[in-house]
């Protein structure tokens, strides 16, 4: 194994220990480490070695495992700053664009549906590093006349479709705006103030509902689009416990209520809808436009904490506030001051997500090992003393399996890739509306790997794929190295080398099948299926 080079910040050549007073000019990743270490309350796991790190950072930032050559090049590199260099390289890569597009897609749609214009908008947004506040503005107030961005409407439109005989579930849309963009789940505050969470008031739900109550689905066009009717009066509501009618206009939790302008009858429209052509009109006062201007702003504490928390979860495997959509005082962040810091710093950098991902990747917290030489089961997850394992998403699994089996260059066409992804989603993804934030191993997924012909087919020698490369390697050590580097991004141990050699000897009469069996067992192993 290569000797581990401990990665330090290049700016400051000294290790900051827990008790050191952190100067404000320190970069964010150093301040994160100081906060985590100060609260650790126990031994820390060692830093991840190069193999662990290179696999993890590729999965997190590029959405796939590294190729055996990428891994070998990184492991052999003697440069002290190689980890930082790799982080920067990956953040600037096309793979990262695809990865972040997939992450945002799953996070925002929760697998309710998809549309190519939505994907195009996501991809272009990630490519141009659109900052989160601008991104959310386009998400909440889609402009159907702007071909480049109109796909953003899917976030609303998908939730305004009706399913079967059920009426459109507007409360679910309100709930998702709160859950996904503010980190609060106001569902239980629909009929009364929340019973267990003091600060979730019925007014919060209805104030958010007011912004969205007039939005409907446009069916006159083929792309995702919504239409707004005039909002002429406040929303009326009454608690099922206290029979006292109340009203509220558009209002976000913790912010001022928007006062509704009044119009003479017939004057509410800037452009009246045309019943003949079915063209929707344009309202003079747009509640959605107001929402898109008032929600994604640096002064909205829930907004910035939510995105900071979700990016932390993405890299660290657990939210500072967990579950991600239950931010309230009875469910505090594991490190409250740190979450505030992350949120403020992100807002200070104009919501540049890529900047925060980079800072998180640079932390010792992120770069710790999932292995420890002390009892790990008793270590609280939220202490980050030991790095957390993360399940591979169905997107990461497909890309990584293609990479590992050496089929990535063969399967490049969009159509077969889309079909494969659909197959993988069916086997590995959660059903629609279930947030993919926890491990949810399934029998369905196991059966897919055990018996579905696609992955097993990739393990047959063809072209220059892994099976073909392995078949040519007659030297036992070289064979085991190739196998383990390609699939598990590490060198095999002496014991593993021997097991491989023994198995090949035992099945010398059917070498291709033996190769397939060996490779399959590593692809189906936890070490492959878990980002560790």
């Amino acid at each position, binding site marked *: 194994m290569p000797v581990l080079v401990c990665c330090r910040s290049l700016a400051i050549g000294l290790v900051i220990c827990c008790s050191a007073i952190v100067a404000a000019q320190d970069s964010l990743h150093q301040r994160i480490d100081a906060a985590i270490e100060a609260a650790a309350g126990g031994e820390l796991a060692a830093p991840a070695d190069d193999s662990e790190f290179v696999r993890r950072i590729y999965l997190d930032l590029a959405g796939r495992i590294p190729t055996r050559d990428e891994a070998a090049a990184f492991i052999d590199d003697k440069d002290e700053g190689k980890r930082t260099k790799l982080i920067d390289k990956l953040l600037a890569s096309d793979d990262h664009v695809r990865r972040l597009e997939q992450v945002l897609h799953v996070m925002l749609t929760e697998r309710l549906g998809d549309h190519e214009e939505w994907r195009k908008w996501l991809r272009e947004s990630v490519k141009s590093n659109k900052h989160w506040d601008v991104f959310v503005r386009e998400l909440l107030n889609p402009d159907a006349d702007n071909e480049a961005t109109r796909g953003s409407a899917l976030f609303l439109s998908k939730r305004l479709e009706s399913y079967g005989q059920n009426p459109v579930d507007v409360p679910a849309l309100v709930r998702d705006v709160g859950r996904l963009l503010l980190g609060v789940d106001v569902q239980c505050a629909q009929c009364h103030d929340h019973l*267990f969470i003091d600060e979730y008031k019925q007014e919060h739900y209805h104030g958010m509902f007011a912004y969205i109550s007039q939005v409907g689905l446009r069916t006159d066009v083929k792309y995702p689009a919504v239409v707004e009717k005039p909002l002429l009066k406040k929303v009326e509501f009454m608690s099922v416990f206290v029979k006292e009618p109340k009203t509220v206009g558009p209002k976000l939790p913790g912010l001022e209520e928007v006062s509704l302008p009044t119009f003479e009858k017939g004057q509410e429209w800037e452009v009246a809808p045309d019943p003949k052509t079915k063209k929707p009109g344009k309202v003079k006062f747009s509640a959605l436009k107001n929402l898109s201007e008032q929600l994604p702003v640096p002064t909205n504490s829930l907004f910035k904490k939510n995105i900071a928390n979700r990016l932390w979860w993405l890299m660290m495997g657990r939210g500072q506030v967990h579950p991600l959509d239950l931010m309230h005082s*009875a469910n505090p962040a594991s490190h409250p001051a740190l979450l505030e810091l992350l949120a403020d710093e992100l807002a200070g950098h104009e919501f540049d997500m890529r900047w925060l991902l980079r800072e998180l990747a640079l932390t010792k917290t992120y770069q710790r090992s*999932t*292995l*420890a*030489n002390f009892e*790990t*089961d008793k*270590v609280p997850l939220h202490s980050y003393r*030991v790095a957390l*394992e993360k*399940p591979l998403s169905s997107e990461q699994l497909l890309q990584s399996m293609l990479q590992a089996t050496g089929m990535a260059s063969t399967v490049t066409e969009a159509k077969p890739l889309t079909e494969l992804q659909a197959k993988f989603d069916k086997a590995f993804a959660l*059903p629609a509306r*279930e947030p993919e934030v*926890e*491990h*949810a*191993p*399934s*029998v*369905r*997924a*196991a*059966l*897919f790997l*055990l*018996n*579905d*012909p696609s992955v*097993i087919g990739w393990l047959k020698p063809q072209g220059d794929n892994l099976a073909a490369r392995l078949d040519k390697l007659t030297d036992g050590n070289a064979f085991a190295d190739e196998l383990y580097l390609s699939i598990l991004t590490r060198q095999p*141990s002496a014991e*593993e080398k021997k*097991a491989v050699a023994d*198995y090949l000897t035992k099945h010398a009469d059917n070498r291709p*099948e033996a190769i397939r*069996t*060996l490779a*399959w*067992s*590593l692809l*189906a*192993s*936890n*070490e492959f*299926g*878990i980002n*560790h």
Partner: protein
Amino acid sequence: MQNPLCKPWEHTLSRRQLLGSALAGSAALGASTIGPHSLLSPAIADEVKKKHKQVLFVWIDGGMSQLESWDPKPNTLFGGPFRAIPTSVPGIHISELMPKTAKQMHHLAVIRSVCTKDNSHSAGVARIQRGDPKNRGVTYPFFGSAVAKLLGAGDSGLPPYVWIKPGSSGFIHTDAGFLGPKYGCIAFGDGKPPENLPLNAEITPEIDEERNELRKLANAKYAEGRRKQVGDAQGYVYDVARTLMKRQDLFDTSKFDPKDIERYGTHEFGRHMLQGRKMLEAGVTFVKVNSYGWDTHGDNFNGHLSLMPRFDQAFAAMIEDLAERGMLEHTLVITMSEFGRTPRINGHIGRDHWPEAWSVAMAGTGLNRGICVGKTNDVGTYVDGDEHDIGHLFHTWYSALGIDSKKTEYDNMGQPLPLAHDEMHAVKELLS
């Protein structure tokens, strides 16, 4: 023609011994004086006592009307058009919509004094199936996940919590709440096997064994020095998958006895109940079978007229079979909805949601047989006497399964949690 599966109990006692004594004893059964092992000779009774306990949970989704089933009130203000009929237990009458079940009444224990909190489906289903304990800031497991955890999988090698339902298949890990995904529910949509069950055509059983040995070897090495939870759950789903691959016969309806198919009914619920019996025979700890479509806000009486006969047929056949096979000795059977239906008949000739006073029927291990506990008032609007919430029922079921729910606690990462509502207790009259 018996199906070729060997029954779990055939390993310890002969079928004829059981059947012989069961048939001899089943002639004239009285009401509640029957002990749990009265049908069996003492030596065999000991064997049976050691049997792994199992549960059949029949969920009637949407709300079965207690007035058209277990608690009829004929010729009263809200009684509706159906009569009450006598059963195999003198003095107990149930709705005429359940003639076959009436013949099995001597095996059943019905409670008519159920009074619960929630009248909405979305919250009600989960609330009832999680036992509605006091809120301690955690999500409690569904009864199926709880039983899977407390009783384990036995030695069947099959998953401990199986659900046969209409619609889609899947692994419903959310049922498990704080117990963790391992105790989730494996659902077989329409009783069909999951996808990719047959062994891949290019892989021989020998190679299949070998590749999985190699996989386990790799997992053992990965697990050293890492947290157990994640790797364990991942490894577990493989074990279940491989057991199911070996037990495809459970899904092969062509092997089912045509007489059984006839008795249970060729309709969906009948097929699913028969499959449920196969799962119980194969040793699955907790089997849930669902029937949907009982939310009769409109046209309640025609609704029940079409729904009840299917329930009656399959449920009665199930009770009869479990009793005949001696399986009631170690199997707890429960059938219930999320609530009952209103005595008041609405403008659409329907009945609405009514958690205030309704009935649950049970049978099997640890329970008295041929009894009715609790009652409603003359018009069926409210409970007359002690009310029993879902917490009481959870305590009753745990007691029946031999689990002391007052002493046993869950350990949720160091947080002790009661199995059921800590201010409630088992309904003594139900327990044998």
